[in-house]
């Protein structure tokens, strides 16, 4: 019996330490943004890889999600004769939820796994130790540029995702339901304006939609780096780290999204 308790105790301790390590890594990576030396070229390279590299999948995701949203809502709204509200529905869903979450999930799959695989293979081929030996802090050189790039680029990708999604809805509204473009965009704007404005000019829906990807970006990059840096057991370990990153980051994004939504609704609606 005591051995079972001991095992549970050790497993629990292990989990707690993992969480602690994860947050220490997150904290250090953010802290090093403000500490010299700055690896600007690494940052730009990562922004290119994370942002520009993910553009095509985000464009495709956004466009087809917008279209399918318009299509589904058209079928439902037709029964009430309210197809005119397609624009409102697409805009609300895209800006508040689907834009950030889908961009987050797509980037988690593409970039998170890439980060884990790259840092993982650097770990198993002793390149991380080599960095340390050459007097460089691997967190400063490898983690900080990736985290910062994700923090910057995910909101940008989300904005693109939102726009393309609403445009996709537009295509369906015109071609399938027969709503003129001008009317579609007017309902889109009505929806945005209905949410209210922060600082007089910035729509609240948009603010919510931008805060989320900022958090998601951090989750993706830190998770990828954490599993990458802690890779053990050769090339097989790299595969394990990659899988873990995608699964953990995706689930975390969905869970955090729920609580973040509650928080943001309380702030912006309350």
């Amino acid at each position: 019996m005591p051995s079972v308790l001991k095992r549970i105790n050790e497993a629990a301790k292990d989990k707690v330490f993992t969480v602690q390590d994860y947050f220490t890594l997150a904290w250090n990576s953010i802290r090093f943004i403000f500490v010299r030396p700055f690896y600007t070229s690494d940052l730009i390279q990562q922004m290119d890889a994370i942002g520009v590299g993910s553009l095509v999948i985000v464009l495709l995701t956004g466009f087809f999600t917008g279209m399918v949203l318009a299509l589904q809502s058209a079928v439902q709204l037709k029964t009430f004769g309210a197809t005119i509200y397609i624009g409102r529905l697409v805009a609300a869903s895209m800006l508040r939820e689907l834009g950030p979450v889908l961009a987050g999930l797509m980037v988690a799959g593409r970039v998170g796994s890439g980060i884990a695989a790259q840092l993982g293979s650097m770990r198993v081929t002793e390149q991380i130790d080599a960095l340390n030996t050459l007097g460089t802090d691997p967190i400063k050189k490898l983690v900080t540029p990736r985290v910062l790039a994700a923090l910057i680029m995910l909101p940008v990708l989300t904005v693109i995702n939102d726009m393309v999604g609403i445009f996709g809805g537009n295509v369906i509204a015109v071609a399938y339901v027969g709503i003129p473009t001008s009317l579609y965009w007017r309902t889109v704007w009505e929806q945005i304006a209905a949410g209210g404005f922060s600082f007089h000019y910035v729509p609240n829906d948009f603010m919510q939609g931008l805060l989320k990807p900022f958090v998601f970006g951090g989750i993706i990059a830190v998770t990828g780096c954490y599993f990458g840096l802690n890779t053990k057991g050769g090339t097989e370990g790299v595969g394990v780290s990659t899988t873990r990153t995608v699964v953990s980051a995706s689930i975390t994004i969905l869970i955090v999204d729920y609580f973040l939504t509650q928080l943001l609704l309380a702030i912006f609606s309350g």
Partner: protein
Amino acid sequence: MSDDPKKPKDPNEIPDPPKPSRPSGEIDRRREPPTGPKRRKEDELASMETQVFRTVRQQERQRLEKQRHVRNAIRAELAGDAPDELTRMAGMEDDGLLDPVIELDRVSLKFEVPILEDVSFVAHTGETIVVVGESGTGKSTILKLILRLLVPDDGRVMIDGDDITDLSFDEALDVRQKIGMVFQGAALFDSMTVYENIAYPLREHTRLKEDQIEERVREKLSFVDLDPDRVMHQLPSELSGGMKKRVGIARGMANNAEIMLYDEPTSGLDPLTTGTITRLIMKLQRELGVTSIVVSHDIRSSFRMATRVALLAERHIVFFGTPEEMTASEDEYIRDFLGGF
């Protein structure tokens, strides 16, 4: 055609072999350049070249012998004043009675299981200490302790007389700049070219201008016998195993490190390349006076380069001495380990 009366009838006939060893270190000037046919001339030149090599080697040996005499004389003289310590050191077989550069003092380390227990040794300036032992005995751990990538549970590690055990992370980064490390798989950054790999420590820690960096990179590549123009812009994935190791050595010494650490420098290499890398490590020690710690299980190459050998078994250093002492040892484990070497 030629007025040499001794011209051989058969043009393939090998000319007289060079005389064996010469008592003095002087170059033999009696031998006149041959006036025979072209082939004979070439052979003559080749043999002269061997002759010159032999002479230079002999001179070098004499110089070292002389140094040893002087050093022993100094030791003997000093020993009169401070008998205990210096007599002990004079009695040691080490060639350099010099400053201790790396010191491990009763170091112990354990993770889940004990890895090292009570491990102590000292490496003096210019020494090459080879740590040998079975796989999994914690040989590479010793290198990580010296680099302070690991901190011992007990005991102290000192570099140039400074205790590095309690340093902060940033202070440890400074200490590491004195040390060049060559990893088992070379650990070159695969996203960078050979040039960028070697330039990395320079860009990171010096204010050298780009042309000075290039000059240094070229110098280091030439030192490790690689053609800078050919390899500089290649990626590590385009290099062979031996070339990677050489680039790894060039990167380790880029910052003019005074200490070089090698983790299994010859593992996975063919016998010829093993020889090349071994010679390179010896060249670093001889020409630059670098202090080296080599972790290896290749006994043959270890014995060639080691000034002293440390044998690690069961978490302890069970033998520490010169290769000659090791081969002469009657200890059963050592005999088994050497396996009839």
